């Protein structure tokens, strides 16, 4: 409506600009069409397919939902998947946050070098990063040869195909996702705040917990969201490092769709993954906004 009105009253330069501005959104149409055809339609269809009972997708019904949620084993898988995300978030925060603090104190040159080092693994294939951890954690890997060389252990530790090994690997694999938003928010903090806190007699610990931590909450929350969403769905790392005995939702989806070829059941499993992961993400971002409101309020 506004477009035609502006076009009709097009007399001077001012209305010409308004005309162009009103038209500008149409530049997004090609991408919107691509998303409708290649993103929305497939996801809607996936929801539709989940309401079929059989592999051939011929009988509509709720059997796939009943089958998936009637199996107690699947609840354990969902819980394990979410717990894996929580553990990975915890380890990335515990060692990532201090690195972000150290980043603030570095000179501009060193900051650049550290940022480069953090971003670099992000551009490396997840397969390469996962492979690296096989070399590190394997029976004849780095950890075992160092520990056995020092005489700490006499038998190689079993680190691959354990959840501990998987969490360690995911900590490195997901670390850049935690650090980038953290560093982004923390480098915008006024450095005078820290100086003021110190001048008023607060120890560095106190400054950390009462000044820096609350002010960096938005970055921390953003980092936690990304790490959680990424680690719970990290199919390659979960299967290669976790092995076949540690079962998470992505493996169930893969098995049902590409091994068993039961697409309705795979659709239910993948919708369960989306809903459970995104509801934790939504809850976290709600908490993040609330803590932000508390700070300013």
């Amino acid at each position, binding site marked *: 409506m506004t477009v035609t009105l502006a076009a009709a009253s097009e007399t001077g330069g001012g209305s010409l600009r308004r005309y162009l501005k009103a038209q500008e959104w149409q530049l997004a149409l090609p991408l919107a069409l691509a998303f409708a055809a290649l993103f929305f339609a497939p996801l809607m*269809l996936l929801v539709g397919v989940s309401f079929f009972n059989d592999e051939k997708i011929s009988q509509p019904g709720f059997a796939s939902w009943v089958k998936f949620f009637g199996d107690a084993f699947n609840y354990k898988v969902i819980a394990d998947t979410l717990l894996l995300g929580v553990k990975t978030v915890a380890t990335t925060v515990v060692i990532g946050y201090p690195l972000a603090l150290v980043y603030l104190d570095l000179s501009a040159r060193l900051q650049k070098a550290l940022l480069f080092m953090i971003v670099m693994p992000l*551009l490396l294939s997840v397969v390469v990063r996962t492979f690296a951890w096989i070399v590190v954690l394997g029976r004849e890997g780095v950890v075992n040869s160092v520990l056995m060389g020092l005489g700490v252990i006499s038998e190689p530790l079993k680190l691959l195909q354990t959840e501990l090994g998987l969490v360690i690997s995911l900590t490195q694999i997901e670390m850049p996702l935690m650090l980038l938003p953290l560093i982004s928010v923390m480098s915008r903090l006024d450095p005078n705040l820290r100086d003021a806190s110190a001048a008023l007699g607060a120890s560095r610990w106190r400054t950390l917990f009462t000044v820096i931590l609350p002010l960096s909450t938005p970055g921390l929350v953003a980092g936690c969201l990304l790490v959680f969403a990424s680690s719970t769905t990290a199919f390659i790392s979960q299967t290669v490092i976790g092995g076949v005995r540690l079962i998470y939702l992505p493996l169930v989806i893969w098995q049902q769709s590409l091994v068993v070829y039961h697409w309705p059941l795979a659709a239910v499993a993948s919708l369960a993954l989306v809903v459970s992961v995104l509801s934790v993400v939504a809850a976290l971002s709600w908490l993040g906004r609330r803590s932000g409101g508390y700070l300013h309020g």
Partner: protein
Amino acid sequence: MGRRRSFTDISYGLVIGGLALLAVVIIVAPVIIVLTTSFTEGQALKFPPKGFSFTWYEQLFDPAKSRQIHRTAGNSLEIACFSTLFGVILGTLASLGLARNRATMARVADSIFMSPLVLPGITFGLAALVYFSLLGFRPSLDLMIAGHLIVTMPFILRTTTASLSQLDPALLDSSQSLGASWFYTLRRVILPLIAPGIAAGAFLAFMASIDNVPVSLFLSNARTDTLPIRMWGMMESTLDVRVAAVSGVLIASAFVLMLVMEWTVGLTRRMRD
């Protein structure tokens, strides 16, 4: 009082410094270890590696012995080039249309275009497989390009929109008041100024496509599989040391490409902001 202060400061330095050092080691060490291991003479992935040789790299570059790896690497490059090309065209247009638009619809559209970043890739991969199969398409590189286009779009949009929102509106006004048409302003003012942002986004999208597993996993078949899928297969079955050599090549190329992007468009600054 003074002593207690210094004690807590020392403990702060030790704990925070120690944890940060651990973070650095965890980030960097695996990459260096893989690089070192790839030069082993032996048949197994041991550390420290036995001897020093280019054996595995020779095997990797041998066209006869590593034909499958070369073929999948070719697929990966083709998919990444085309999905990035189409992504840049569609993404830049959409950014131009939406970046300065404050309307609710524009904000909603923007967050939809960014949503492949949080939606589990494996769910989109399965959805795309079901969709294309039920429509009667057979697996092909074209379908892979379409899938990669969607999942790499957020990278292009983020940097392009960021550089558009830093653009001084006065420049556009003066260009137009001097009589330049909208298209002329776009070509001579807007595009040159946001080109570094587009380039950074294109680079990130290209790398994301090369690395992508979840979409390729579902949309590829034996003929159209990509390098990461092939490497995954090699890791699951035999633990061929050539995987270390492939990793070495990928690490070196990512490093060089990143240095180039850092010098030309300031990549890390754009990712931080």
